[in-house]
């Protein structure tokens, strides 16, 4: 980080929380916190208790399971890439510029976070579907989105994009504009400032945002079901496969659920250990 050391120390005003004196937490907080933790962990334990460990290897390596897992990983990767491409500019605009209606725009952009995914799926359907706003335009170009893997990627990107934008916007605000201003006064053009100063500074926030988006993509269910359909190897991602298996083979559904939980835990742990939540969220 040559840029950091080149800047005088007094500019670095971010307080170091590790050495700050901590005020004690009220004692009654602990039992409630424990109850909260148990509330989250107990259902996972309940599910793990249901797993048929003897048949677990066969259940999770069946053709349908592997097809679903493979599709989930591929689509989540593609959607995360799309989130990065679209999310970085969105976060930059929200954090580094001001224009009338910005607050409203931010709320609207974050809408997929609070919308039920099924509603998101319907919205996509009425936009990209064959009879949707843009559907006939796409069809004229020979692009068929309905029932294709593209539809899955669109659904996942729709629900995951706000995660990346939020994380990155928080990181951008925390990082501040001093280094960027310095680079600009030294004659760097905006694109160069972005590439050599801004993005390296917020890389942890970008990383954790990307990983969170990836996790959200992996878990996407409602919008995919509504918008993309369900066909093995094409649109049936892991959550859809679990939903279907549950009809006939509860053991397979539980085994696959555990796989999804493990993947999610790995992903969340990755964010925690690598980037840390604090810079990503802008709370230090």
């Amino acid at each position: 980080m040559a840029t950091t050391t080149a800047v005088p120390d007094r500019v670095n005003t971010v307080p170091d929380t590790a050495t700050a004196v901590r005020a004690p937490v009220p004692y009654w907080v602990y039992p409630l916190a424990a109850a909260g933790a148990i509330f989250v962990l107990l259902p996972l334990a309940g599910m793990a208790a249901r797993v048929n460990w003897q048949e677990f290897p066969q259940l999770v390596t069946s053709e349908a399971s592997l097809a679903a897992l493979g599709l989930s990983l591929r689509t989540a990767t593609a959607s995360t890439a799309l989130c990065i491409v679209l999310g970085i500019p969105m976060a930059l605009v929200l954090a580094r510029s001001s224009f009338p209606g910005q607050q409203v725009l931010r709320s609207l952009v974050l809408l997929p976070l609070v919308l039920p995914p099924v509603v998101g799926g319907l919205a996509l359907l009425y936009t990209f579907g064959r009879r949707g706003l843009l559907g006939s335009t796409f069809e004229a170009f020979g692009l068929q989105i309905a029932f294709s893997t593209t539809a899955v990627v669109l659904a996942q990107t729709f629900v995951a994009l706000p995660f990346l934008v939020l994380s990155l916007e928080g990181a951008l605000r925390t990082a501040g504009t001093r280094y960027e201003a310095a680079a600009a006064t030294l004659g760097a053009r905006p694109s160069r400032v972005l590439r050599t100063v801004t993005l390296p500074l917020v890389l942890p926030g970008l990383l954790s945002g990307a990983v969170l988006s990836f996790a959200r993509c992996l878990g996407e269910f409602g919008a995919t079901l509504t918008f993309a359909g369900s066909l093995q190897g094409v649109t049936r991602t892991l959550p859809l496969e679990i939903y279907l298996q549950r009809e006939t083979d509860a053991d397979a559904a539980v085994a696959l659920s555990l796989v999804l939980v493990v993947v999610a835990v790995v992903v969340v742990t990755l964010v925690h250990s690598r980037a840390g939540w604090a810079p990503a969220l802008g709370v230090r």
Partner: protein
Amino acid sequence: MGHAPRRNTAVKRTARSSLLAVLLGGALLATTACSAAGQGPQGAPASGSVSSGELNVFAAASLNGVLTDLAADFEDDHPDVTVRLNFAGSSDLATQILSGAPADVFASANPENMDKVTAPGMAAGEPVTFATNVLQIVVPVGNPHGITSLADLADQQIKTVICAPQVPCGAATQKVSQEAGIEIPAVSEESSVTDVLGKVVSGEADAGLVYVTDVKNAQGDVEGIDFAEAGAAVNDYPIARLVESANPDAAEAFVALVTGPEGRKALADYGFGTP
């Protein structure tokens, strides 16, 4: 530096809303993963609460319209009883009943899911078949692809949506396509008949295979086409009173209403066949 305080609050606000958002997102993720396991019983009150005035009817989703009507009639005839209807997929309902959900009557869309409940002896007596349902081809209004038979659905150009073989309507779909000697190159295999219907109603799919009653319910939005092989897969709907019922008399009376003349008439009105 008059700007400083304002920026500070803005940062805080963003931080707080992002934290909230991430928490929300995490909750969403967890909900998806956990509910997908489908093992949890419904958040219904414990079966110990015996309130004689309530009758819990667990019924297949396809019975929604007809049983809602019949429940209203039942409440008119028995003013002391409140009928509470729980509509869901039959396999979900069977799982709920097996996990101890307080049900008095179970009406399943197929014998297999009823068997799950009768096997451990949870049904009182033999279940009675009270309705039948057959598949119909469903197409958008005007039938733009001119579909007239099941064999037409073998065409790759026609985007057909069917139920996955794991669910009852999918099993029926397999039977009729075997009978017709065709393979349907479906663009999607949905896990519920409503999802199949939805794809045709929205115009995403050119055709689908759903039950006659579903087409009847969606009247105006879609068209139904009868086909010769439908008789190969007649779906029987069994109904039974449950042993654990807290209100056996009312449960018995409700079963009698559904299987009796009034029930048969209502079922016929909704497109069901009666045995």
